[in-house]
């Protein structure tokens, strides 16, 4: 039988999954992105210094990351090297974004796939207190505390207004946590709601606001520095940043990571479900003072953690054979030419024709191979590259979960590596702040390179690319500039890699692949499908973006009923 889950909720944007189920398992799956805005088309003819302002609006959940990739692309095209202080500030903002994204993902987006609210109402607060004390030193751990949380949840249910928690799959047999585990994790659901708004003040201090910080510039950052100045980023600001960075580290180390390891142990069978294509790609990111990235780049194939290939971005192509665009050969993003042609069913519809074109998402491939990107790829590549801290974190988690390294290629593996990289980055914040404070104390206040700010200083034509690792994976922008304006702009986004439809050779995208074989106990309540898809943390507004940003190009769209 075929099932449709649309909307896939608790993600950014819109996603539809159709899946064939036979004998209690998924036997085939199709991922469709049903939303399209055309931001790249909008960029054609505009000022390249503005591009990041536009591309940042691709996503407000992973805000900042497409701003960063964009300024890097334009800087690459124009030959600009940013000052050290700009590198540090960008690293701080991006790492903060990782922490925010990943923590919210666990508790508020992915959590309800694993945590049963109704079970939490039957928990013994004293036992929940003992469980919390066994997990970490987090101080919200008394029986009274958990009794208060339980009463709050009970009052909420008794009110009859279930709101966000209505109509979920509560009581599904795949929920196997104890009532006390459920209560502890629900308490952290609530704590994380309040906590996430606090530490993201780092973005406000460095970026003016969150979401969509405003201080990026081609050439650096608009965050003027002056250690003693009242109207610039000063010593007091740095002190505030240190306090917030410490809050981050405490919560990550005492709540988020222990919770995730606990979940992983309790749901150990899910270390062999949702295994994915087994090929991993990482661009590398968080450059140090020497230019080397904290997280290295590379490609791994065949579920191996040993044979690391060097990354060559020239091998990336995008295929549109099963996407709603006019057919063309797979092309590198720097020359990608695509014309939207909608051939799906006329809405309202019940089913897509999954034998034909079925998504607004294109199908990126690396050397013709399907690749998974994201936390699993980053930690696996860093592991294969023998980065000591990555090895410690991964080996420690494998011991805690009592699983072999092959278990990383799974639903739980994605979740755990997401937590591990969060911890790794939380540990870096203090060091970057030391670097920034050191520069400022030494009188290095440079935060932009203005030499190429004015269009008169640019060549008549220029092309470049900017690569970054967004929280959800490898993110690349490719830009062409002619006579001071954008002539072509192309973006390949993490959730396009992971959520792609099939390609011309019929190969499934990463989470289509991961879904095959997933057990489904009750096809009318496909909780297990959500678990696998959510483990990739889909971001669909990002995944779909068009395409032909050539100046003056036609963007007519043909509807074929």
């Amino acid at each position: 039988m075929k099932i449709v889950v649309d909307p896939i909720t608790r993600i950014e944007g819109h996603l539809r999954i159709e899946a064939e189920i036979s004998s209690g398992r998924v036997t085939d799956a199709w991922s469709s992105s049903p939303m399209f805005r055309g931001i790249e088309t909008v960029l054609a003819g505009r000022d390249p210094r503005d591009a990041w302002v536009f591309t940042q609006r691709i996503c407000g959940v992973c805000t900042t990351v497409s701003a960063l990739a964009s300024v890097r692309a334009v800087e690459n095209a124009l030959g600009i090297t940013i000052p050290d202080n700009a590198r540090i500030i960008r690293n701080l903002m991006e790492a903060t974004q990782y922490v925010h994204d990943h923590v919210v993902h666990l508790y508020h987006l992915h959590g309800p796939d694993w945590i049963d609210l109704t079970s939490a109402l039957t928990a013994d607060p004293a036992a929940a207190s003992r469980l919390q004390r066994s997990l970490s030193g987090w101080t919200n751990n008394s029986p009274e505390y958990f009794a208060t949380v339980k009463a709050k949840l009970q009052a909420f249910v008794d009110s009859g207004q279930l709101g966000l928690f209505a109509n979920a799959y509560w009581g599904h047999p795949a929920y196997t946590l104890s009532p006390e585990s459920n209560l502890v994790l629900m308490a952290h659901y609530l704590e994380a709601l309040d906590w996430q708004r606090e530490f993201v003040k780092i973005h406000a201090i460095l970026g003016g606001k969150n979401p969509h910080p405003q201080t990026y510039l081609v050439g650096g950052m608009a965050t003027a520095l002056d250690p003693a100045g009242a109207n610039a980023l000063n010593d007091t600001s740095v002190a505030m940043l240190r306090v917030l960075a410490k809050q981050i580290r405490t919560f990550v180390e005492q709540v988020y990571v222990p919770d995730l390891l606990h979940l992983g142990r309790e749901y150990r069978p899910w270390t062999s479900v949702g295994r994915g294509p087994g090929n991993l790609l990482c661009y590398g990111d968080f450059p140090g003072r020497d230019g080397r990235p904290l997280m290295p780049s590379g490609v791994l194939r065949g579920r191996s953690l040993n044979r690391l290939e060097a990354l060559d971005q020239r091998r990336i192509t995008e295929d549109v054979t099963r996407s709603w665009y006019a057919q063309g050969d797979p092309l590198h993003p720097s020359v990608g030419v695509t014309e939207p042609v909608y051939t799906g069913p006329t809405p309202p519809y019940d089913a897509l024709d999954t034998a034909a074109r079925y998504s607004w998402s294109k199908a990126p491939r690396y050397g013709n191979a399907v690749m998974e990107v994201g936390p699993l790829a980053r930690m696996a590549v860093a592991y294969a590259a023998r980065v000591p801290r990555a090895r410690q974190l991964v080996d420690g988690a494998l011991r805690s979960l009592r699983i072999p390294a092959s278990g990383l290629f799974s639903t739980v593996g994605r979740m755990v590596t997401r937590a591990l990289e969060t911890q790794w980055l939380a540990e870096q914040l203090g060091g970057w702040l030391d670097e920034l404070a050191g520069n400022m104390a030494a009188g290095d206040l440079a935060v932009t390179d203005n030499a190429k700010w004015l269009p008169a200083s640019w060549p008549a034509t220029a092309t470049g690319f900017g690569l970054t690792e967004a929280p959800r994976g490898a993110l690349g922008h490719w830009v062409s500039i002619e006579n001071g304006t954008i002539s072509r702009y192309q973006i390949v986004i993490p959730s396009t890699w992971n959520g792609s439809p099939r390609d011309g050779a019929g190969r499934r995208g990463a989470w289509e692949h991961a879904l095959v074989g997933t057990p489904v106990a009750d096809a009318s309540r496909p909780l297990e499908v959500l678990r696998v898809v959510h483990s990739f943390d889909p971001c669909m507004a990002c995944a779909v973006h068009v395409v032909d940003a050539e100046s003056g190009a036609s963007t007519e769209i043909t509807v074929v009923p």
Partner: protein
Amino acid sequence: MPTIPPAENSRTVDLPLPHGVSRRAFLGFCSAVTAALALPEAMTPRIAHAVASAPRLPVVWLATQDCTADTESFLRSVDPGVGSLLFDVISLDYHETLMAAAGARAESSLDDVLASGQDFVCVVEGSIPLADGGVHCTIGGRTAVSIVQEVTAKALFTMAVGSCATDGGIAAARPNPTGATGVAGAVPGITNLVNLPGCPANGVNITAALVYYLTFRELPPLDAAGRPLFAYEQRIHGSGRCERYPFLQAGQTVEAWGDEGHRNGWCLVHMGCRGPSTYANCYQRNWNETTWPIGAGAPCIGCTSPRFWDVNSPFYVYRQRTTTSATSTSPSGDQPTTTSADDATTTTAATTTAATTTTAATAATTTATTTTVPPTVTSTGS
């Protein structure tokens, strides 16, 4: 100042506090909302009473061509944080990003609200594409436009949060590939609509508008474009508003990134700041209770202005801009007609320093030849 019903009791009353929320935190929240609404502090007890005692307000939050930044902004609302908001103030009965249910069961949550006949507020985040029958955004196989039309028709009132839902935002920027528009454009004749433009809208304002309704059972006073006066009445460029304005009056402006003026917090207008044409309360209601873009050293892009992606870009190019020219190309909104001595001062400054006016239609094509360095800076005096 809008006409406000008198408080029933201006002293601190005994409140039925929301479960698990301390009295201090709760009153802090109500006080912050009162300030956001530009109401006198004496109104706080009345607001507190309404928030604490009224049944939670059902909210259906529709996401269309969106980036979820308005949701994220809402999640960063005022203390004591969204945990209490979600559980004590509103009942978020449908929200794709946050709801536990998925697929057909998620859609049945929406159907339940619509079928029940109960009062609910509709929030729309994202633009609505109209080209080609709306195929550029479908949810559960239905077009966004059909869903928005159905839900708004049954709502008590609708809040369009963010610039996309207000006027089409970035998706509607030239050449508007998908025929995107805001709620007003997608639902012809809609009357009970509150527009909260911004990219994103400041979560404080989203929360304040909901609490205003909860307290007074009517919409907050709106301008002609449907924007609450409490958030969009004042232009940010003026004395007592933007903290950099006094520097402009003293003739002190930033001329290059990281220069002495930049480090000293001088006026950013020559770096492209759109403060002179922007109406918003960012200067008052900081983002994330911390600061705002201009405070952090970045020029304002005027994200609350109608069609700002086309009207205000290229963003880093200084150009003459008066309050009326900023709205002349807008199909959907009018700027408030508030005037003050500051406007006159600024207009004078602009006309003496800029030789040409760049219009929205030509902005992008003139980029290559336009620089951000203005003619010799003239002091506006004061």
